[in-house]
């Protein structure tokens, strides 16, 4: 069995995980008096830019669902979690090489720790999203749908997806020096290849098929399902489940395979 022993190893050392995550958050929020604000200012600024560009310049609100601001804020916040995870997990083993070299912990922990820390930042940014939601409910532009129950599912699925991606990126980066550059480019393209500022319905049919291969598309669909009463894109959601589990298993195998050479190299 793959996955189970790894999961058990991590759970057995959850105390260490807790220590590391606390340290990450401590470093992030202790360095600046408005540390928390930065967590939300960044995605808010992004959302504002896209909102202005697409509403006033291109007059293309139709690419998303209404209210468009809420649509973008959800997309940008979730994407930020994913892209920060990919960037930082790809450096996970190198950046902490001294710690990795001198402690005998399940080494998947160094990846999981980043996804958890970034996940907590994401959860801390959710009040912003709910703020917008409540505002638009109050002015009658949207309603809460029971499908909001899909949101926790989306969070869990995105967590597993990010861990899977991180388990591949972290060891590969140690052995393959150009990896961080590739990740940077892939993320930049991924932003537009993911329905963040547009909805799948607005994409041409060919692109809609391609988007089925993007697990973040189905995950965003679930985040948004509670606020936007459109028909649920079930194939996309199923596909995101399948791809997430394939990625997680592939990540576990790659990590196990590369662990020995990585430890020699760092």
């Amino acid at each position, binding site marked *: 069995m793959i996955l189970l022993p790894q999961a058990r190893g991590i759970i057995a050392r959850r105390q260490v995980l807790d220590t590391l995550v606390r340290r990450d958050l401590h470093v992030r929020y202790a360095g600046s008096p408005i540390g928390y604000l930065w967590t939300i200012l960044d995605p808010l600024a992004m959302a504002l830019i896209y909102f202005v560009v697409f509403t006033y310049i291109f007059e293309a609100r139709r690419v998303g669902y209404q209210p468009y601001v809420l649509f973008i804020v959800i997309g940008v916040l979730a994407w930020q979690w994913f892209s920060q995870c990919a960037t930082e997990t790809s450096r996970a083993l190198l950046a902490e090489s001294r710690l990795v070299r001198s402690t005998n912990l399940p080494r998947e922990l160094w990846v999981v720790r980043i996804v958890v820390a970034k996940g907590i930042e994401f959860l801390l940014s959710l009040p912003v999203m709910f703020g917008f939601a409540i505002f638009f409910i109050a002015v009658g532009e949207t309603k809460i749908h029971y499908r909001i129950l899909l949101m926790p599912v989306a969070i869990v699925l995105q967590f597993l997806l990010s861990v899977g991606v991180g388990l591949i990126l972290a060891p590969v980066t140690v052995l393959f020096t*150009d990896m961080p550059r590739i990740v940077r480019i892939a993320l930049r393209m991924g932003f537009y290849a993911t329905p963040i500022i547009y909805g799948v319905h607005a994409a041409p049919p060919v692109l809609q098929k391609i988007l089925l291969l993007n697990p973040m598309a189905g995950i965003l669909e679930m985040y948004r399902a509670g606020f936007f009463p459109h028909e649920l894109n079930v194939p996309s959601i199923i596909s995101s489940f399948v791809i997430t589990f394939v990625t997680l298993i592939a990540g576990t195998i790659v990590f196990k395979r590369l662990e020995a050479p990585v*430890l020699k190299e760092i």
Partner: protein
Amino acid sequence: MRPVIESKDLGIEFYRSRRRKMSLREIVFKGKNLAPKDTFWALRNISFTVEQGEAVGLVGGNGSGKSTLLKMIAGVMIPDEGGVKVRGGVAPLIELTGGFLGELTARDNLYLAGGLHGLSKAQMDERYDEIVDFAGPQVRAGMDMAYRHFSSGMQVRLAFALITTLDEPIVLVDEVLAVGDRAFREKCYLRMENMLAGGKTLFMVSHSEADLRRFAKRGLYLQQGTLVGDGPVEEIIEQYNADADAAR
């Protein structure tokens, strides 16, 4: 009772050059298979067992693979051949300050490093005074300072105090049996003796004959990655010295 360390046909192969670090440019322009597989076995066919409570000294010239062997016992490197079974937790006096980060305060560092070695916050609270007392008054006075502002002697004193407080049944030592100034070294020796008296298993690398004689009963001798001697420490030291003299 089963041995606490059981090494069977242990072997590890390293790249001689930085071949393994591939860059896109190299793959595109040279093709990664053109690179010669320039490797060597840093250790091979290493088999031995260590019983609970034994004190073993590992000797050998520079580059003979001593540190690599300790790392595999500590579980921070993975063998390519065979394996080593370790029954019980390990307190590694190897890269002493490895778990410490310069930018955090010494106190935060202590809790972090303790956590990484498996101590809970409550256990750390309990041991905090003991650790800092052992590390000495200068260290105690600076616990809220950034760790990188510690003198290097103070840094290793704190790290040494922490690792030797871990209470693991197996102690691995890579040439850092004692750290710091003369007075502190004596404290280290005493602590080490107390740990041994308490029934812990010691596996140490040392170039100091005095240390080997004082702490180890049994010796292991590595020569270019092969185990060439295993016996009473006195005999192993003699064998090692004879080889060294012959090579001169």
